[in-house]
Structures are given as C-alpha cells and as structure tokens.
C-alpha cells in the first residue's frame, strides 16, 4: 500500500505540467494554430518563474505565496513569448512548424547566454526553496484520500487541477470557447456568422502561451526542484504534452487520463527499485528514462490513423476560400 501511495504522490506533480501544457496545445490547435513551440514557451515560463522565485524569496514571505507570484509571472512571460508565434502564424501566414522550431532553438540559446553572462551558470536554480508540502492540515487526516492526495505534494497540484477544470469548462461550455473552436474546425463558416477569426486565433495562441508558461514553471517546481538550465530545458515535456494531446484525441477528459498515464511512465523509472517484479528485472535506469518517448511512439501508432485533430489546425485562414 505504501508503494501505491508513493507512486501516486510522485505521479501527480509530474502529470500536472503535462496536463496543463497539453491543454495549452489544445487551446492553440482548437483555434487553428499548431503550436510546436510549447517546449520553448515552457522553458520561458520556467526561467522567469524560477528567477522571480529567487528574487522574491529574499523578502521572507510564505513560500507557497511565492509559488503563486512566480506562476503569474511565468504565465505573463509565456503569453508575451507566444505572441511571436501568433504574429508569424496569423499575420504573416508563415509555416507554423518552422516558426515553432525556430522558437524552440532560440530559447535554450537565450537562457544559456543570459545565465552564463549574469548568473555564472548554465541556468537558474533555487536550492533553498522548500515548497514541498509534507502534509496539508486537516485534509491529510481523511483516511485513504488524505494519504493519497494531501501528503508529500506540491501546491502546484491543486492549482493545476483548478486550472484544468476552469479551462475545460471554458472550452466546452462557454460561447466564447465554442466560437474559438469553430475557428479551428471551419474558420470560413465561423467568419460568415460574424466571428472574428483573426482575433480568436490570437486569443487561442495567447491562452496557449499563458498555460504553457505556467506549465513550465510547475515543471520546474514539481520535477526539477526549482531549477532550469539551458542544456536540458524541460527535457522534451513540451513535445510529450503534444503527444498527450494527440493520445487524448483533443478532448479534455481524455487528456486528463493521458497525462496521468504518461506521468506514471515517467515515475516508473525512478521508483522501479521499489516495485516488486520490476526490482528483480534490474534494468538500467536509462531504459525507464526512454520509456515515455517509446510509449509515445507506440501510442501514436495506434491513435494517428483516426485522428480527431481540428480540421483547420495548421492551415492559414484565407478569406477568399469562403
């Protein structure tokens, strides 16, 4: 039973960033723009979030509060950075994959340049941060649930779940969300009934940037112990999130479980020595490190044939095609 608790406690902080960034991908694709740049937006969010964290920490306020401040800053910078994609894709009608790749190349270089010049390292770190919550008061006393969800965790898990619920309602239940989705399915039709396609797509990409920035910061908090460097970045989590989105067939309910599944695969590596059965196999840890990427490939093999991708995602909106 302890092992089960341990695995769930470990999985959630990893699943949350994946989930939020997969949602970020959904916002962008549902409004019609393919966002390969999620990886770099995450890195921007993580970088500025951790930087803010280390600056604000000197003020001696509650560290959980600092996480929230860092989250806001990371979201803002993620949003600002995503404007590069929005401008190129929507105004300049460029190839979105190329733009995303350029952004993904730019950010590690920028982080390395700035960190080496001003922080004397290849990234920013926060070794003194202690945002780990040993147990939540009161709630951790609930039998079973208390052990599963309210012990040895991060505040990011709860904020992340809240973001997930709000974003899901927004996309599926509000007029605004439905209009946004129409721009990714059939922009010409949306335009003909008076929806401003350009504006909606901008908003979609900006939401995507906001969420991916926050997701990047949550990654730094929950996975790398409040640090990010330019060489490893976010270890391909931005791309894994895209895989989560495809695996979840662009549906927020499925994305939730897809993220949990991928996070579990990730955790399997670090906790293999504790799980009976896997312990005896005694595989090198690299195998487990590779596992999420291999699983992604296999999952994509079975889900790509009948893709539920938004029909106009990645296509440039051309009014004359109406």
């Amino acid at each position: 039973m302890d092992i089960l608790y341990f695995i769930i406690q470990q999985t959630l902080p990893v699943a949350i960033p994946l989930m939020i960034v997969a949602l970020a991908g959904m916002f962008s694709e549902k409004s019609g723009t393919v966002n390969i740049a999620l990886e770099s937006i995450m890195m921007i969010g993580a970088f500025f979030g951790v930087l803010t964290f280390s600056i604000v920490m000197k003020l001696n306020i509650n560290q959980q509060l600092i996480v929230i401040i860092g989250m806001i800053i990371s979201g803002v910078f993620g949003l600002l950075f995503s404007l590069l994609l929005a401008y190129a894709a929507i105004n300049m009608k460029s190839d979105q994959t190329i733009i995303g790749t350029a952004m993904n190349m730019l950010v590690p270089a920028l982080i390395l340049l700035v960190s080496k010049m001003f922080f004397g390292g290849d990234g920013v770190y926060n070794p003194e941060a202690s945002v780990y919550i040993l147990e939540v008061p009161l709630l951790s006393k609930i039998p079973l649930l208390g052990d599963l969800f309210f012990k040895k965790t991060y505040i990011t898990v709860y904020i992340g779940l809240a973001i997930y619920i709000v974003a899901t309602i927004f996309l599926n239940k509000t007029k605004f969300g439905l209009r946004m989705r129409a721009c990714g399915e059939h922009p010409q039709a949306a335009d003909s009934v008076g929806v401003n396609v350009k504006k909606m797509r901008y908003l979609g990409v900006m939401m995507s940037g906001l969420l991916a920035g926050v997701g990047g910061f949550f990654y730094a908090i929950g996975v790398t112990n409040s640090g990010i460097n330019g060489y490893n970045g976010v270890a391909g989590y931005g791309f894994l999130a895209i895989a989560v989105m495809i695996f979840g067939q662009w549906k927020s309910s499925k994305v939730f479980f897809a993220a949990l599944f991928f996070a579990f695969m990730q955790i399997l590596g670090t906790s293999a020595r504790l799980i009976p059965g896997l312990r005896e196999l005694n595989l090198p840890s690299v195998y487990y490190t590779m596992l999420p990427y291999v699983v992604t490939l296999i999952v994509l093999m079975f889900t790509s044939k009948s893709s539920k991708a938004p029909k106009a995602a990645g296509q440039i909106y051309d009014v004359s095609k109406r």
Partner: protein
Amino acid sequence: MILRGRAAMEFKKLINTGIEKVKSNYKEGKFSPFFAILLAIGIGLLIGLIVMMFSNIGESIPAFFTLTFGGLTELGDVLYKSIPILMTGLSVGLAFKMKLFNIGAVGQYTMGMFFALVVGFYVELPTGLHTLVAIMAAFVGGALWGFIPGLLKAFFNVNEVIATIMLNYIGMYLVDMWIKGSGKMFDFAATRTKILPQSVQLMKIGSSTSLNIAIVIGILIAITLHIVLNKTKFGYELLATGFNKDASNYAGINYKKNTIITMALAGGIAGLGGAFAILAPSIIANNSMTYEPINVLANNGFMGIAVALLANSNPLGIIFSAFFVSYIQKGGSLVHGGFSYKPEIADVIISTIIYVSAFSVIISKSVGDFLKKRKERKANPSGSSDIKEE
C-alpha cells in the same frame, strides 16, 4: 577545381539562372527569395546586436565586428566545421522537398556517429578501407533512424515531427548508454570516448587545419542530390508528392514507398554528418575527435534545419548556407574568446534568421510593392495613377 564535367555545367547553369532572375526581378521592382534570405540574415544580425547591447553595451560594437567578420581570419576552420551541418542540412532539405519535416536529423546524426565509432573501435582494417566501412556503417545507422519515422508516417499516419522528436531522445539515450557500457570505446577517467585509431580517420587536406576529404564527399553528395532531384524519376516523384500529395497519388506515384525511401535516405545522409564529425582528423598528432555522452541532443542536427531553410532546401544552395551558418558560429566562438559574451549568441542569431526567413518572402514582397509604388508616384507626381481625362 573539384567540380568537373556535368556537375560543373549544372552548377554554372544554376548560378547563371539565379543571377538572371535577380536582375530581371530588380528591373520589375520585384524581390526574389534570395533577397528575402538576405533580409532575414540582416534582421538576424540586428537582433543579435540588440541582444549584445542589452547584455553589455560597452563591448557590443567591437564584439559585433568580431562576430560578423572574425570568421574571415579562420576560413579553413569555418569550412571544416561546415561539413557536419552540410550533411544534416542536406538531410532536412531532402525531406522538405517531399513536405516532410525531418527534425530527426538530430537523432540520425547521433546514430550515424555511433555506428562509425563502433566500426572504428571494433573492426580492424587497413587505412582507407577502414574509413570507408565506418562511413558506410554511419549511413546505415542514420538510415535506420530515418526509416522508423518513415514507416510510421507511411503506414500509421504518425506525424513525422513528433515521431522524429521522440526518436531524437531515444537515440540520444541509447547511444550514450551503449557508449558508457563499452570498455573498448569509453574512457571512464576522461568521461569521453577513447582516441580512435589513425586508420579510421579521414584523410587530411593541407597540414595546418583540420580540413579533410569529407568536404569533397559532402559537396559531391550535394551535387548528386541535386541531379537526383531534378533529373531522375525518383526525384520527380518526390517533388510531385511534395507539391500535391493527393494528385501525385492519383497519378500512380507510390506515396508510402517514397516516404519510407526519402526518410531513410535523409536519415542516412544525416548519419554521414555524424561520421564526418567524429572521424575528422585532429591537429594534434596521435589524437582524434571524441564524444562526451552527457545526454544532450546534438546541436549539429538542429543547425541542419537552419541550413536547409536558409537555402530553401536547394542542395546546391545548402553548400553555401552550411558555410554561412558555420561562419556565424565561428564568429560566436571568437566573441566568446575575446569578450564577455558567450558562443550561444551565434545560436540566437541563427534561430532569429530562421524565424524571420519563414515570412521574409512576404516582407520583401511588401517592400517591393512599396518601392514600386514610390517609383510610380515619382513618375507621376500628381499622386494618383488613375487614367486622367483631359
């Protein structure tokens, strides 16, 4: 000097038509893709300068000059370092011709390098033959890593961008694990691969630089690719599929087969890049290039994307764009030596160039339109170009 016969003719023809095009476009007030690229490079350098000014205003101007012109002092080195990115550039460019985005050049490059290392350490052959076998093995290794996403794309409709990114990580982790696990290849004290035997290293050209025979092979491959793309049935099918997948499929072109072949071929070429990087001779006697397995994706693979995009995927253009990217990188490392800046400034400039080049055609077109309008206005000072009734 290297170019003879038909290849030289092709080359000359291409350059001449290019010049003609630029001339006629200029006369008509239009801007060619070539100008668009120049514009992208200009903006990239400008952004680089701005970043440098923000990080250290005092050194920015002299450092910028070192960055842009410093490469001229070490042209041999620039040329030598352009070889691996020439190969990854050709790899990405070839796949682009079929509208496949091969981000996997990173993993294919690493795989190719690994296969070359295996032949280098585990096989004993006479000089020359050893090199040849290692290069061929690298091609096979890279091709294997390109074949997998090709297969997934053709039969399972898996997006090649995501598939190749996943394979980049898998390849990197596998290669690093295999190298660290082999006592014959890995020097545990230095945490690097051991020194390769002289018999497998590439033949040097000249004595002072690391420039080697691979530059000739690389250029020959680029020319061959150009001929294959433009003069053969396979090349025609590939280009046709790139223009319109459905129409070409309807016309009887086997999309699945061509996807797999293209990706495998692109992978193999990127693999050669890995071989050329690791088999290059060292300036120091009894030494060789080494590889440090520290779980970092190969930057030369990513640079291939920049190289291919800058040349608009034209194999002959890629020769020049590889040289250019290598030149900027050299400038970056020189800036690192003399000033407080770091070599990553070159990567910032190169990625900005890619970003801008993705829409520079539109910019240059609007600049062209603007100039044309102004010309018309000058010729017709009353302001309106409407037909006047007298």
